[in-house]
């Protein structure tokens, strides 16, 4: 059953009219329209925020049950107050064309947001649940809950996606909201430009009037002192004006080198959320989501095979999926295990993993901790030596196919119990210690490169 927005409102208003007083209907529903419908939601356009507040508070049960009668299923309700929209369209800083569809397109374009990055197609898993919830809270009530929001995690895990999703949601909630999204490099370039051309005033005005300022990859601010200072003041102006600030980085604020202390403490002021690499189930969900979004039909076992072999990077996951899909549609053949393996041989990290030796790991870890390679197999138990050794054992267990006994041998003839102990110790500590988690991931990445 497909109904136009007008038809839906006709049916809906008929039901409402029967159940509330004529005065109530005239007061609250006489100037309401259905502005948008999707398979699970209905958006009502109302004259003023007061209509939204009172309809939501007093008539939402009535509306939901009426909608259920029409569709036979539940729909979530959204409201758009027209007055707010018009009022914001009048403000000169956000000149928006009159029609609805092009206005959203235009604002999306001017803010530099990628329309594909929305909350709807963000796959939530245990690895990013917390960041997702924080981002959602920020998008719903900017500058109310977590300000600033600082999201960090390795590249390709969805930081930018979350950031832009916040921007999209804010634009949808409040037409004409001044959403500014940019990479830190852009900020720096524009700042330099402003100094050169003496347009600092305009530069400041532009950023300090934002409703939300989102800066991606803030770690590139490291060492740029003037930019940091400028950003410090921008940050202060926005924070004091109750404007939302969202930042992302590939590491926690305190670990960004050459970043001024006062900025670090401000970044840690609000909420710091980490995105971790997705687990197996989430990886499959991401692939399924992507496949259905691109409308390609891939056998489940192929998705599983990709998810099993590509462990961290979401971009790489999607790249592999695209490659398989392209092969399938170009060759017209059905996929076999061999053809998939052949197709993706260079992206499967697992294969490179097999070639890692315990020696390489020891060397890399010793280098990192700045100890002698001989200490890896020594009997010394000082913490400065024992701890790196445990890290190396953990990595050997994770990254090589060597048995516990073989690993023990390589570490100066330790028995397999020692290796298990080290493995468990590091694993437990990783759960509570973010910097260790970070270190392990860093080493892992270097080794599997």
């Amino acid at each position: 059953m497909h109904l136009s927005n007008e038809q839906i409102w006709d049916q809906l208003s008929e039901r409402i009219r029967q159940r509330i007083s004529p005065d109530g209907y005239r007061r609250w529903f006489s100037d309401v329209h259905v502005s948008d419908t999707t398979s699970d939601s209905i958006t009502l356009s109302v004259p003023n925020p007061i209509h939204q507040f009172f309809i939501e508070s007093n008539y939402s049960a009535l509306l939901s049950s009426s909608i259920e009668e029409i569709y036979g299923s539940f729909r979530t309700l959204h409201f758009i107050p027209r007055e707010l929209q018009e009022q914001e369209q009048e403000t000169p800083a956000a000149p928006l064309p009159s029609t609805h569809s092009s206005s959203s397109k235009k604002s999306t374009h001017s803010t530099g947001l990628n329309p594909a990055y929305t909350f709807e197609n963000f796959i939530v898993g245990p690895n990013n649940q917390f960041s997702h919830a924080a981002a959602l809270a920020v998008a719903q009530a900017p500058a109310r809950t977590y300000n600033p929001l600082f999201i960090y995690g390795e590249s390709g895990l969805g930081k930018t996606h979350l950031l832009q999703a916040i921007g999209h949601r804010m634009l949808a909630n409040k037409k004409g909201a001044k959403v500014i999204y940019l990479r830190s490099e852009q900020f720096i370039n524009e700042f330099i430009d402003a100094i050169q051309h003496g347009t600092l005033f305009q530069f400041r005005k532009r950023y300090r009037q934002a409703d939300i300022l989102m800066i991606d990859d803030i770690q590139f601010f490291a060492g740029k002192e003037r930019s940091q200072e400028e950003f410090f003041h921008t940050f202060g102006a926005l924070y004091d004006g109750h404007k939302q600030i969202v930042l992302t980085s590939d590491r926690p604020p305190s670990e960004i080198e050459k970043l001024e202390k006062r900025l670090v403490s401000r970044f840690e002021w609000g909420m710091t959320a980490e995105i971790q690499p997705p687990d197996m189930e989430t990886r499959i969900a991401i692939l399924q989501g992507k496949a259905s979004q691109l409308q390609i039909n891939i056998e489940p076992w192929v998705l599983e095979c990709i998810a099993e072999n590509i462990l961290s990077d979401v971009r790489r996951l999607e790249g592999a999926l695209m490659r398989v899909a392209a092969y399938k549609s170009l060759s017209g053949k059905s996929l076999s295990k061999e053809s998939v393996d052949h197709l993706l041989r260079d992206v499967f990290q697992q294969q490179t993993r097999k070639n890692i030796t315990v020696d390489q790991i020891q060397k890399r870890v010793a280098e990192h901790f700045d100890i002698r390679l001989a200490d890896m197999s020594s009997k010394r138990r000082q913490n400065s030596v024992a701890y790196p050794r445990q890290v190396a054992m953990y990595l050997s267990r994770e990254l090589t196919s060597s048995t516990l006994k073989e690993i023990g041998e390589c570490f100066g003839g330790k028995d397999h119990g020692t290796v298990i102990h080290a493995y468990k110790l590091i694993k437990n500590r990783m759960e509570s210690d973010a910097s260790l988690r970070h270190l392990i991931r860093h080493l892992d990445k270097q080794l599997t490169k």
Partner: protein
Amino acid sequence: MKFIVTKQSLLDGLQRIQNIINNRVTLPILSNVLLEVSEKGLSLTATDLEVSIRTQVPLAMVEKPGTTTLPARRLLSIIRELPAEEISFETDARNITSIRSGPSFFKVFGLAKDEFPAFPSSDEKRGFTMTQHDLKEGLHKTSYAISLDESRYVLNGVLFSFKEGRLTLVATDGRRLALTDTELGEIKYPSDHECDFIIPTKAIIELERLLDDEKEVRLHVGENRVSFDLGTSVLATKLVDGKYPNYRQVIPSETAERVVLERENFFQSVRRVALLSNDKTGSICLNFSENNLDITSNTPEIGEAKESLTIPYKGKNISISFNPDFLMDPLKNLNDDTIILELIDEMSPGVFKLNSTQRFLYVLMPIRVSI
């Protein structure tokens, strides 16, 4: 800095400012109170960056003017416990303050005043003067209707609307709306000062505490902040960013029935009947018939209650249900003997009215018992 102060006056001063101090702040200086001593006396300042309060405390003796900051909660608990009536303060150059009173001696580490945020200057664009009594009453009659829902942030405060020589205060949470209207007289402000702004909840709570029954209050309205000069104390607050929605839409333009109720009797009856309604989803039903009002509540698995009142009612029979807490809020916060209730039918809002010098209006949406 060195001075002597009586326990009671310092305690009073600290209690006026202590509420806005939040100990879980990220900036340690914000949990401190700023003490500034001059020949005129002691001034105490506290801030949470949103709301700032500065208050004056008379001193028994000033030996040496100066400035420092001290942890507010700790200072308050020390002063409260001190045995003697006179307290002497002395601060050295490293912001260590010695407090002596009778047999007691305390040495408290403070922070330098430089880090303390400056008190917002009252960059006056518009100014208004009114009696503290009127403002206090007005806030008292409206503030309970403020929305606590943070996603509706424009409703997280009270609307102050200065228009045509009057001040209208409005608070609403989407299910009820409270409004007062106070005549200020033409001379109190020029007409080009007319404006609307929203004062956040926290500042309202503090204002209600600080406002007196005598004296006048002067409002200094700036671009995005307002300060209230109360004489001894000054409260400065940021404004809620945004435009208050069109509240007039809520107020019914017509009415069918009108009944005068004795406020106290009605309140007591409702309170008793409400004992048997459910806290969250409870409703209480008012059944109006000729010269009689039955107040009933009926909650499955808890029980039911009923009370009858004789009232001067001549209209048609109406049964209308309300949330008991929302029904009691205005009754509790008014002090007039009688209150007017206007009704249209069981599905339209009930309106409480007072037509005294400070006009009062309370619109309460009914609960629809059956959908």
